[in-house]
């Protein structure tokens, strides 16, 4: 077992001071929630095993999902702040396979601006305690602002979804934009289907598809339904007739290039909206409220950078994402964000908003050692 970091007792004290309660979750976890949430690509990076009865188990690769599962199982009331400090296990090419992480998950707080700001402030306080005197830079992004821009530019739903999914990956966003500017050719459809698509007759199209399913022995109860296929066929046909206008394209590019310190970011966004002739409405209000809440914690706002293109391509992140890095260190020390969809995906019966962060204590320790 890896040695517990020397800073651990100080961090535990900090958590208590900030009224986040330490929670302990088992090292051995069901693997499915991780693979379901983060995707199959995680499979090669975690330690998987099997129970005697064939259930897939893994060594916990992170804390957020176990803490949320634990919260759901215990039917604890909200709002509630959970803190953790412990080992996580991942297959890595370099460095060890087991290392310590600490963090806070803030579940059920309905004042999102306040909770977002507090999460950033908690993470910042933790690093300031562990690395006294070292300059820290916070980078933050916001998926909901990007989605608001897409909506304000009047992009059709199918495109908005596709672009929102690619958010955070420059490469994929580039590819998606290229496709939209120059959509691939339609593949040929059977005559009758093509007619129904052209008519936009969804019900008749669904009936036609249902017939096809019955003929080929595919049960609509087991997977995609005829109506779902019909809807998407019609939507695709509509999208083909639309082109991303040059103005919308350049507005998107201009938006994604925005980088501003948090104290000026809301103004910059407003300026962008004005020059693009759009309104970002509620998303901008939420952004401003959060920025003000962050400033209220007395953090050095000049060292908090809003990067409009910064995001994580995982479908449970819904708004804020942030990272903190330290002067003279190449690797990110903290990753955090808002995951309002996660608890429902994990089986909570009512939606529970959540925001949290995690600190790579191994990286922090390395910096402390080198200090």
């Amino acid at each position, binding site marked *: 077992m890896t040695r517990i970091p020397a800073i651990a007792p100080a961090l535990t004290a900090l958590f208590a001071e900030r009224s986040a309660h330490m929670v302990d979750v088992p090292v051995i976890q069901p693997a499915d929630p991780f693979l379901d949430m*983060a995707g199959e690509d995680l*499979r*090669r990076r975690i330690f998987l095993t099997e129970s005697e009865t064939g259930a897939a188990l893994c060594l916990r690769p992170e804390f957020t999902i176990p803490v949320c599962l634990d919260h759901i199982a215990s039917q604890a009331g909200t709002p509630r702040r959970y803190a953790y400090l412990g080992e996580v296990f991942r297959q890595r090419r370099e460095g060890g396979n087991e290392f310590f992480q600490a963090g806070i998950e803030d579940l059920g707080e309905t004042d999102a601006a306040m909770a977002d700001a507090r999460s950033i402030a908690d993470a910042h306080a933790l690093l300031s305690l562990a690395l006294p005197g070292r300059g820290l830079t916070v980078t933050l992004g916001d998926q909901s602002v990007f989605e608001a821009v897409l909506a304000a530019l009047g992009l059709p739903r199918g495109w908005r979804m596709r672009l929102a*999914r690619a958010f955070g*990956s420059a*490469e994929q966003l580039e590819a998606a934009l290229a496709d939209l500017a120059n959509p691939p050719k339609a593949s040929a459809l059977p005559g009758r289907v093509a007619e129904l698509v052209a008519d936009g007759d969804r019900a008749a199209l669904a009936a036609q598809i249902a017939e096809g399913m019955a003929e080929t*022995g595919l049960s609509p109860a087991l*997977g995609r339904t005829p109506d779902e296929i019909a809807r998407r*066929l019609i939507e695709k046909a509509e999208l083909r007739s639309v082109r991303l206008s040059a103005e919308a394209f350049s507005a998107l590019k201009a938006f994604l290039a925005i980088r501003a310190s948090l104290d000026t970011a809301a103004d910059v966004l407003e300026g962008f909206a004005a020059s693009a002739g759009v309104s970002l409405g509620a998303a901008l209000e939420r952004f401003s409220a959060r920025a003000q809440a962050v400033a209220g914690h007395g953090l050095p706002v000049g060292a908090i950078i809003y990067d409009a293109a910064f995001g994580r391509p995982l479908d449970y992140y819904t708004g804020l994402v942030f990272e903190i890095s330290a002067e003279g260190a190449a690797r990110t020390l903290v990753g955090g964000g808002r995951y309002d969809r996660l608890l429902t995906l994990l089986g909570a019966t009512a939606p529970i908003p959540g925001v949290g962060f995690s600190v790579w204590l191994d990286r922090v320790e390395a910096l402390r050692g080198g200090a």
Partner: protein
Amino acid sequence: MSITIALPSKGRLREQALEVFAKAGLPVEEPADQRRYRARVGGRDDIEVAFLSASEIASELGQGNVDCGVTGEDLVRETLAEWDAKVEIAARLGFGEADVVVAVPDIWLDVSTMADLDDVAAEFRQRHGRRLRIATKYWRLTQQFFSQMHGIQVYRIVESLGATEGAPAAGSADIIVDITTTGSTLRANHLRILDDGVILKSQACLVASRRERAAADAALLADVRARVRAAVA
């Protein structure tokens, strides 16, 4: 001083591999008893032949337990993590051709490309309460193609140990990643290959392990490789 060559132990692949080696001037003296798994090359006491299953050959090559062998490129890429650090493809042999492909139910008329599949996968959970399921025995190739190449993260792989093409009709998966030669099995099961859904065009290859070896063995291996290449040129 000797090297070991692994050849497929069964079927057409075995016959065709033996033909190539015979043509290369390396006739394998088949054991009198077909159930024996060791043989020699005629007139050569420095080359040993081991008959193994094609997928075992890939893993034995990866571990450096044999010097070279005949197996499918699909098995090499699937069985070995960072395959090109462990083995190299010394020659493509022109038989055992098969494509590893992504196939969807033919009635998914709205899905013809990976980008379409990305759309469908993204909304799947919301509509059906579970992720899109892919039946395959090619875990690694599927992950690389979907996650790394096409940026599709949200799907689940369902392990399939045979009759993968039946999975969508049986309801155990929505789509499949499988090997096909003529496409007739896919068509018979009302499945269609996506326009950009060919993951790998595979064929039987002479594959050499990159393990360290004595100069004499390296020279021997180079000779085998040159002969096989000439035989299939």
